[in-house]
């Protein structure tokens, strides 16, 4: 096959036959983000009914193992992702914050289910109305409980967010994602931040 007929594209598309040298090139940022998004380690934080659906997502039918995520790390020091699955009560809130603080940067949080996202159907004295009052959340997955497919969509959204976001993130600066909204005089860039 000659070089002309081969499709133009990156190194991976054109195949290793066209390799004239033994180097893989890419940006450092791209490589790091690729590695991070493909090896997210979730921490066990199953609280209530959503935990059962999270375990079902890890089970053989819905298979989180295809993303390399089926091993839930028990120790927060070894985990990147905290999936808050279930309702957070007043007694559990300080424990949640402590586990979040023990996780090492970079870390992400998926709020799974309506109870974790906003208090859900329990708008009363006992439940924290949204886990984003305690920890910063990256992706919200609605549902009561969200089916494993919804959770996987949330995880894939997180992967996309990791690939699109900034490599190093200082607290208060945001994830660096910029979208354009139509304002009064044309598109206005709005950057999605994180407090």
């Amino acid at each position, binding site marked *: 096959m000659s070089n002309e007929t081969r499709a133009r594209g990156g190194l991976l598309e054109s195949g290793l036959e066209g390799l004239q040298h033994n180097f893989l090139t890419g940006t450092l940022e791209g490589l790091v983000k690729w590695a991070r998004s493909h090896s997210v380690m979730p921490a*066990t*934080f*199953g*609280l*209530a*009914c959503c*935990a*059962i*659906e999270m*375990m*079902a997502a*890890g*089970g*053989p*039918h819905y298979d989180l193992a295809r993303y390399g995520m089926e091993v*839930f790390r*028990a120790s927060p020091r070894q985990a990147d992702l905290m999936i808050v699955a*279930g*309702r957070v*009560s*007043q*007694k*559990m809130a300080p*424990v949640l914050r402590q*586990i979040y603080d023990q996780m090492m940067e970079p870390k992400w949080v998926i709020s799974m289910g309506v109870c974790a996202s906003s208090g859900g*159907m*329990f708008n*009363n*004295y*006992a*439940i924290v109305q949204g886990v984003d009052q305690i920890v910063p959340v990256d992706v919200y997955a609605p549902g*009561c*409980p969200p*089916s494993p497919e919804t959770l996987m969509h949330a995880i894939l959204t997180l992967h996309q967010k990791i690939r699109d976001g900034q490599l190093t993130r200082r607290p208060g600066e945001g994830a660096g994602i910029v979208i354009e909204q139509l304002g009064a005089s044309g598109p206005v860039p709005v950057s999605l931040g994180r407090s």
Partner: protein
Amino acid sequence: MTAIEENVHQTSEGAQEILPRDVVSAAQRLRELGAVLRISEAEALEAELERAPDDETMIINMGPQHPSTHGVLRLMLELQGETVLRCKPIIGYLHTGMERTGEDLTYLQGPTNVTRMDYASPLFTELAFSLTVEKLLEIEVPERAVWIRTLMTEMNRISSHLLFMATNGMDLGAVSMMLYGWREREEALRFLQEVTGLRMNHNYIRPGGVAADLPDGWRDGVLRLLDMLPDRLAEYDTLLTQQPIWRERLQGVGVITSEECLALGITGPILRSTGYAWDLRREMPYLAFDQLDFDVVVGSYGDCFDRYAIRLAEIHESMKIVRQCLEKMPKGDYRIQDKKVTPPPRARIDESMEALIHHFKIFTEGFKVPEGEAYVPIESPRGELGCYIVSDGSSTPYRMHVRAPSFVNLQSLPHLMHGSLVADAVAIISSVDPILGEVDR
């Protein structure tokens, strides 16, 4: 008033935790065991002398976030080496105020609330709630509704026991059992989704009957599950029951006697593992269980292995019941046709103004239930599950209390763990099979 204030001042940060040995007297330590303590004077003296000055005991904390998948249970263990001397479970990490929420929701919205208590077998709590409301209303549901409820709750029992087998296996290290259990559970959940629309927290069993009739082709769904399960259960039998490691880890671990169970209020597979044949489906039948032929599975040693074997055999018994439901399912209404309780069929809402108003009133105001109180217990996969409702004549319950079996069964943990190893502690929690949603409500 002063008595309460004294208690409020006494309980400070950490008073729920276990206190170190030198602060606590022998009598208090023995009371912490929480079992029927028929101890002699000699044993009490021995417990006092047990406290040698060079004894090094360590108080460690397990949870509330730990890899054992039983939810947010916190255990404080006092260890001497690897032996557990004392254990105190601390709960409340999932308290949702469901009993308070239940007072603000109408009787038709009630099942959405109570179904989230025991989230591994949600149809049972819905059933207890609906039966209690029907007792207060003094109505009878039609035959077909009774049989549909029996079929669905027994399918839920199968899926709950498969969850137990999966988590029990994983806690003891048989991680492949986790995958197999979830594989079978998906099949049962697929049937439940076909009928109720949801995989979990179905809100299907409501006061007056069930929410919708069984769809066409439901028999195929049931038969598919019944054909697949026996071979798979035989696989688990070979994988686990016959295996020497499994037996060594479970036999003789966490032994309890019937007298202790009765004193502690423990029901369900734990009580039956001691040889006491008490199953509400047989002794005080409800639904259609008096017309069904099934066996009550009983153990003999009261240890963890018996509890595992009982739950495995109960899956077989539930399959027997489901097969009989298949054959005996009568035709008829799936809910009572009493205008006060049942909304009109959806098709009529397009045609008639009265049907629309009737539907509106039932779903916004709710139906009123006469004054009174009632308690109806059923046999859930964990034990006796009961619902106590006090009504004041309005459309919301005045007081709704659910007697959760896991809440009472957790009291057995200090007694079961006394004198065992830390590794056995995980096996024991797993064999008690608590669901923290109904413990904390």
